[in-house]
């Protein structure tokens, strides 16, 4: 590398230059933004080595279990820097999401030591943690001998960080009590509106700001070959957690209530029934015809292909569908969404792709070395500015002006949407070991309501009864 460029990168890392100034000077030297990013990242890696002995596990190999995802792609693209920084080797297996969590469950439940680190969701750790399959990462985070002083744990978004921690006590809120850090947040998704701006403009419609408007606008946008609103509908827990629960929580509704340590169903209150009835009507009037088979994939691709006018789902779906060779690339826009007209702000429920450490790993310190690098501020910034590592979980990355400018240029409204809804973003479910049973049954009940097999009131009463039976049988209710 040329000395001039290295000097500029060093000045930036020492705070003598802003990122904007740095990029301007790189441009003057004839470097493209991506080349500049790579140089900067290499220099950042070297700067990292100044304060911490990254070489303490040189020669060791860490094996990862990864889901095929842009977050994993960003990490793989930066892996050479990790290897140069630490002298460690990294191997990985990568699986599509359809089979990924089965693979994780099989590997962990069998006590296999094949994988040291794996991608997970926070909800999954409500099973993995109590089962004794994952490590409480607090003991590494809080150990200055094992964690880089610049790791800056407090830089992680508070709601996201807390959502990856749980005491293991059924019903106790995430991040409270004697919470164990079962995983480290990596990237996360809020649930908001992504819409086709051209379709809205052609129909002369404004972006809806609450559930009633959403129902009306979705119906107005529904035509022969276009449906108004994309939301998930498959018989899976994944149908409940995105838009549906974000709106539900906005009315102050809960999935379960906790009384004297006992859990009971809370989804058949009057407010809940009213919200469910509206949600069901919205799908019946303006949802996909094959809604009951829709996963995140169909929700996203239909928006990208112009088959749906908007989605109330993971914001990153709107991000990805607005680029690449999607038919609607460049035509999508974003809006924060509060379902309750009386709510002060949105309350998106969140999905967090995280990194967990297997209890069966044979070298946990080496595994942590990788984890702290992969979740560190330098890699976060590299991923966010050079790859598609959105949404980042670090405040410093969100504050980075070049990152914000990149999003504002290519994805207008995305940053604003994020900033408005981030304060209310967290996991709104009650942590407990039957999470997947109860939410899958919730989704199945919703399918029956949408199909008209059971009225909403009756369906929710039946669901609550079944949930209470299951909680009692498991000794939780």
């Amino acid at each position, binding site marked *: 590398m040329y000395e001039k460029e290295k000097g500029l990168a060093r000045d930036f890392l020492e705070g003598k230059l802003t990122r904007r100034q740095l990029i301007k000077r790189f441009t003057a030297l004839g470097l493209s933004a991506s080349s500049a990013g790579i140089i900067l990242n290499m220099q950042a890696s070297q700067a990292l080595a100044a304060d911490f002995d990254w070489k303490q596990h040189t020669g060791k190999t860490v094996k990862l279990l990864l889901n095929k995802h842009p977050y994993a792609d960003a990490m793989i693209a930066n892996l050479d820097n990790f290897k140069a920084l630490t002298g460690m080797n990294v191997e990985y297996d990568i699986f599509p999401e359809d089979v990924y969590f089965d693979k994780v469950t099989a590997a962990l439940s069998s006590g296999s030591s094949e994988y040291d680190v794996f991608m997970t969701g926070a909800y999954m750790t409500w*099973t993995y943690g109590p089962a004794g399959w994952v490590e409480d990462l607090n003991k590494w985070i809080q150990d200055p001998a094992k964690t880089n002083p610049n790791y800056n744990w407090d830089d992680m978004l508070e709601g996201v960080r807390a959502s990856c921690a749980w005491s293991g006590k059924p019903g106790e809120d995430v991040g409270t009590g004697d919470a164990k850090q079962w995983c480290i947040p990596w990237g996360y998704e809020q649930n908001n509106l992504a819409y086709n701006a051209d379709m809205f403009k052609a129909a002369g419609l404004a972006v809806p700001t609450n559930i009633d408007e959403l129902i009306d606008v979705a119906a107005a946008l529904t035509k022969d*070959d276009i449906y108004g609103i994309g939301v998930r509908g498959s018989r899976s827990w994944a149908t409940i957690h995105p838009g549906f629960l974000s709106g539900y929580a906005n009315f102050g509704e809960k999935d379960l209530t906790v009384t004297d340590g006992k859990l009971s169903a809370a989804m058949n209150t009057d407010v809940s029934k009213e919200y469910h009835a509206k949600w069901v009507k919205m799908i019946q009037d303006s949802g996909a015809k094959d809604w009951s088979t829709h996963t995140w994939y169909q929700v996203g691709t239909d928006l990208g292909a112009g088959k749906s006018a908007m989605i109330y789902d993971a914001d990153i779906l709107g991000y990805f569908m607005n680029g690449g060779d999607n038919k609607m690339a460049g035509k999508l826009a974003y809006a924060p969404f509060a379902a309750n007209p009386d709510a002060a702000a949105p309350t998106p429920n969140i999905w967090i792709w995280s990194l967990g450490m297997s209890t069966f790993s044979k070298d946990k310190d080496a595994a942590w070395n990788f984890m702290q690098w992969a979740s560190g501020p330098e890699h976060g910034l590299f991923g966010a500015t050079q790859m598609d590592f959105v949404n980042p979980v670090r405040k410093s990355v969100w504050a980075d002006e070049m990152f914000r400018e990149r999003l504002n240029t290519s994805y207008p409204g995305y940053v604003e949407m994020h900033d408005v809804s981030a304060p209310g973003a967290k996991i709104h479910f009650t942590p407990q070991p039957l999470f997947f049973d109860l939410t899958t049954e919730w989704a199945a009940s919703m399918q029956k309501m949408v199909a008209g097999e059971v009225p909403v009131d009756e369906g929710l009463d039946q669901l609550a009864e079944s949930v209470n039976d299951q909680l009692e049988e498991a000794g939780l209710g």
Partner: protein
Amino acid sequence: MPVPSQVSKRRGKRLVSRRALPYLLSLPALLVCIGILVPFVTAIYYSLQRYRLSQPWAREMNWGDNYVRFMSDSKFWNTLVVSLEYAFLTVGFELILGLGIALLLQKRTKLNNAVSIMLLMPLMTAPALAALMWKLMTNPGFGILNYFLTLIGIDDFRWGASPSSALFTVVLVDIWVYTPFIMILLLAGLRSLPTQPFEAAALDGVPRMQQFFRITLPMLTPYILTAALFRLLESIQQFDIIYAMTQGGPGDTLTVFQVEAYLNYFQSTNVGRSSALLLILWAITFFISNIFIKNWLRLRERARGEG
């Protein structure tokens, strides 16, 4: 000349190897049996426990409580009914269609031989892939089948996405994949039937329909029973097609045994309930296969004139 002590050593070695030979010969079979019996016994053990991986502290023997709970669990009864419906519908239609096609191809001609080979194509497709292919074809938005339906005036048919047509849809896919299996078995049976009874019937002027019901069908029954048994055992354990197309939905429309057991283990990590479900499925398949085998033996005895 060998000394007496060397002779006795050789005899001893030969004796040992002769004694060990039967065990050595049966060792592979023994190993396979162990490979089947160990998980089977383990499943029985787990099914008698309250055992969730997410609640290791609550693990205890509950001595059949999982089974007792099934009796009052409407979801379990739904699973039983759906599984049986699926199995009997698929096998019934596949037998009728497979027999019909086999009869059409019975005569050995170049064309019939070529067609019978071509008809095996769906059988070469992995059921999960076939399901994904059909999922695309039945998509209410862009599926080719919906396009054809609109040509005959049927709009908005939702296939697997609607509770009223979901069972029909997965049965249709199963029929597409597995009818060739029945067809090829029955075709082999038809072509191996002795010709004399048919020649005699023809000389006597017996109508074709009567020939079919009085001669062909009774003689073909062992083949039909064999094909039905194989398919029924496989069909009642169906997973790939149903899960790939609907994940068991909409609602609880298609929560057959394997889908329920899979979700109970991999999603809910409820090992006890999952094991109990699979053991009930094993009991059903054991019961069905016993009936079939008894009937098959009875028919064989009758054919030999022993009945």
